């Protein structure tokens, strides 16, 4: 049996705590103590976070591979498919666990203030607990089936939370869209899992699966297909082209939910999946290239779409899509350069992104709270005097997202750019394309700085304007909501610089993950390259600083005095394209939704036709019955007479027949 005080035991307890918190919250919601339903959630997240921090501190030092696995019995076993309750603790899962629980704790504290007085208070916190639990299950899994269970749990909870205001039609539609679009990717994921299971000698546990594949490599076509199918799931969950459309709509839910989805629990799952499967991706340069191209085009497209949005949360949503694109860019370069660099860059960006994106979303939640649920940037402005704390923390988050030096976003974005450049300089198969992707990523970084600071200036600068929905008492948020903002701002400021550029702790720790070790070994076997030292590249850093400051400067020159929108002549058509989201929603509507609706309408007509035939048949007995119905008049003697007449006819026939 597993020792509860061992690292794995402790982190499994940490992973399951949110579940019990969720149950307790739901239970409290049924009693008259419903207004305390946030306590179980906050306490369980916080203690899970502390536990994972303890585990992290315990294993942080040291060298060599770090992977602790445990089988807690069989889940199911069908013929050759043997699935155990198998869990894995390695740096990858531990870092995810710690990040997710820490960010979730802060978001839960913020939500306690944000959601106060809402009728679904207990439902909200219970769903949130379930959400975090599903994500923890996902990261702790040691086989694809438990991972899939967590994956689907995350999808379900996101559906329920996005549709939290289920009476609002737009929220219900957004929830449905999120669920169906991610489901489209999940189909690919499930096929990929089973293909991998077959190619991997019918093993289910990650370690034996990857070992088998390393020893008996399948045909390159198979491995590329597996990689692309797995990536298909990640595209759905992590909102990449062409399935990104659900994420901007998903902010119909309460704002802290958006923070949770964007920062910790949902969209990072795809990045985590690909990091976990890095040993497969190094074997297929084609798959890596496709991942990088999709990531790059998503990053650029989403940044372009974010340029003209009027809705503060929508800008942030597109920026998440764009930043996820960056992570996939890094993951995609892992075939051309060592996954020790590429995957670490992606995971590092995921880590820092969690801080500043949660901060930005909670900041926008704070603005929304003050403005009477108005989030349209045209309706308010100049809030920096009114909400000094929100303003300061939002500024730090924006600067981190834009990639201002020293802040956390700068280091991680720099690593990604650097790894792309190295992939371009390498002698890998498609290295010239990586040069192009580097250029796209650099351009996107500039756009990121511009749109982030456009949103910032429109919200906080210029003359003070407050929408009438705020009923005249717009105010700074209560302290309960400011504390998470300040903590996250500290994280966005310092988390990046502490964990990697100064100490290189993050990279060294993550390298001890067996997934990355396997991938690195595979990379060395597949390429005849010598390993290059990965240092700080002053040229890339200078370029990204220049781009960030350029973007900020452009935003400042246009929007320093706040709204309204100022568009330079000649860019009007581009502005309209961005504002209308490139008409992607309309195109999807035309290409997918409308044909489906037409098919459904045709099916309905056909069904009505079949129904008409069936109804016609059913009229025949009814018509016959109508003829006979008067016979049933309730008089006993009448029935008896009928019987007697029948008997008489019968006897007559018998007598005449026998007489003949």
């Amino acid at each position, binding site marked *: 049996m597993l020792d509860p005080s061992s690292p794995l035991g402790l982190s499994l307890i940490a992973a399951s705590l949110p579940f019990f918190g969720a149950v307790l919250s739901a239970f409290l919601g049924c009693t008259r103590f419903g207004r305390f339903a946030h306590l179980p959630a906050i306490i369980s997240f916080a203690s899970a976070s502390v536990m994972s921090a303890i585990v992290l501190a315990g294993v942080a030092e040291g060298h060599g591979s770090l992977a602790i696995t445990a089988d807690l019995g069989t889940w199911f076993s069908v013929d050759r498919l043997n699935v155990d309750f198998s869990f894995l603790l390695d740096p990858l899962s531990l870092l995810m666990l710690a990040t997710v629980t820490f960010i979730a704790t802060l978001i839960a504290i913020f939500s306690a203030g944000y959601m106060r007085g809402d009728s679904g208070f207990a439902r909200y916190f219970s769903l949130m607990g379930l959400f975090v639990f599903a994500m923890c299950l996902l990261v702790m899994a040691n086989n694809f089936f438990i991972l899939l269970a967590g994956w689907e749990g995350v999808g379900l909870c996101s559906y329920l939370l996005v549709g939290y205001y289920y009476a609002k039609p737009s929220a219900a539609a957004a929830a449905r869209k999120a669920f169906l679009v991610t489901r489209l990717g999940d189909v690919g994921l499930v096929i990929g899992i089973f293909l991998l299971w077959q190619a991997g000698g019918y093993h289910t546990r990650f370690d034996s699966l990857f070992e088998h594949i390393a020893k008996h490599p399948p045909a390159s076509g198979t491995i590329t297909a597996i990689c692309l199918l797995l990536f298909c799931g990640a595209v759905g969950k992590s909102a990449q082209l062409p399935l990104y459309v659900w994420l901007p709509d998903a902010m119909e839910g309460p704002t802290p939910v958006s923070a949770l989805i964007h920062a910790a629990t949902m969209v990072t799952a795809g990045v985590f999946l690909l990091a976990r499967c890095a040993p497969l991706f190094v074997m297929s340069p084609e798959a890596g290239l496709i991942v990088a191209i999709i990531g790059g085009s998503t990053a650029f497209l989403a940044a372009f779409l974010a340029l003209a949005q009027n809705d503060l949360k929508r800008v942030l949503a597109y920026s998440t899509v764009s930043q996820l694109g960056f992570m996939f860019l890094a993951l995609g370069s892992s075939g051309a350069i060592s996954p020790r660099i590429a995957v670490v860059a992606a995971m590092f960006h995921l880590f820092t992104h969690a801080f500043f994106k949660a901060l930005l979303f909670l900041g926008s939640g704070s603005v929304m709270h003050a403005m009477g649920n108005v989030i349209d940037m045209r309706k308010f402005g100049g809030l920096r005097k009114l909400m000094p704390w929100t303003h300061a923390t939002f500024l730090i988050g924006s600067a981190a997202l834009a990639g201002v030096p020293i802040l956390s976003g700068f280091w991680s974005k720099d690593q990604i750019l650097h790894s792309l450049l190295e992939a371009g300089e390498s002698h890998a198969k498609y290295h010239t394309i990586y040069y192009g992707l580097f250029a796209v990523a650099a351009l996107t970084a500039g756009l990121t700085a511009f749109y982030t600071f456009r949103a910032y200036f429109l919200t906080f600068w210029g003359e003070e304007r407050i929408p009438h929905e705020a009923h005249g008492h717009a105010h700074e948020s209560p302290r309960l909501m400011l504390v998470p903002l300040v903590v996250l701002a500290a994280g966005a400021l310092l988390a990046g610089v502490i964990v990697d550029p100064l100490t290189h702790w993050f990279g060294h720790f993550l390298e001890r993950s067996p997934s990355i070790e396997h991938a690195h070994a595979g990379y060395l076997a597949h390429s005849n390259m010598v390993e290059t030292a990965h240092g700080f590249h002053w040229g890339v850093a200078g370029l990204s600083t220049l781009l960030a400051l350029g973007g900020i400067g452009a935003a400042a020159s246009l929007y320093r005095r706040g709204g309204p929108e100022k568009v330079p002549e000649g860019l009007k058509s581009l502005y309209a394209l961005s504002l209308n989201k490139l008409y992607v929603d309309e195109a999807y509507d035309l290409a997918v939704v409308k044909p489906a609706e037409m098919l459904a309408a045709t099916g309905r007509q056909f069904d009505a036709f079949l129904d008409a035939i069936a109804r016609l048949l059913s009229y025949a007995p009814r018509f016959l019955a109508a003829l006979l119905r008067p016979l*049933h*008049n*309730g*008089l006993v*003697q*009448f029935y008896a007479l009928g019987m007697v007449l029948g008997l008489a006819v019968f006897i007559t026939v018998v007598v005449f027949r026998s007489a003949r």
Partner: protein
Amino acid sequence: MISLWHFLIVGAVLFGLGLVGFLTRRNMITLFLCAELMLQGVVLNFLAFGRMHGSLNGQVFGLFIITVAACEAGLALALFLMLYRRGRSLDSGLWQTIREQGVPPAIDTEPLPIETEEPHPVLPVTGMKPGVAPREREVTRA
């Protein structure tokens, strides 16, 4: 000498009387008696043919029919009692409300009288004052 024909004639007469009685009377107890009469006519036929063939099959059948008729009598009388309590009358035409919906009712030109006298006292639950059975809802004549 009494031949098979005599038996058969008596049986047929019993059956015929029962049949006519069943079709013409409407007091439910009379109806039941007529049905019994028909049954006994049939039993007589069984016995006669059994005797003619010299086998016991007919007699066994007869015994069975008598047994079944006894059960039937118990059941039928209990049902009549319940119907009487509801409708305060033994008229079988009173129950034509069970007819199919939408079929016009048969008009009874000379209905049987409905008894209105007080019902008999019933045994009370222990510890309660003896009283009179509550009057059942009267079934109106259609």
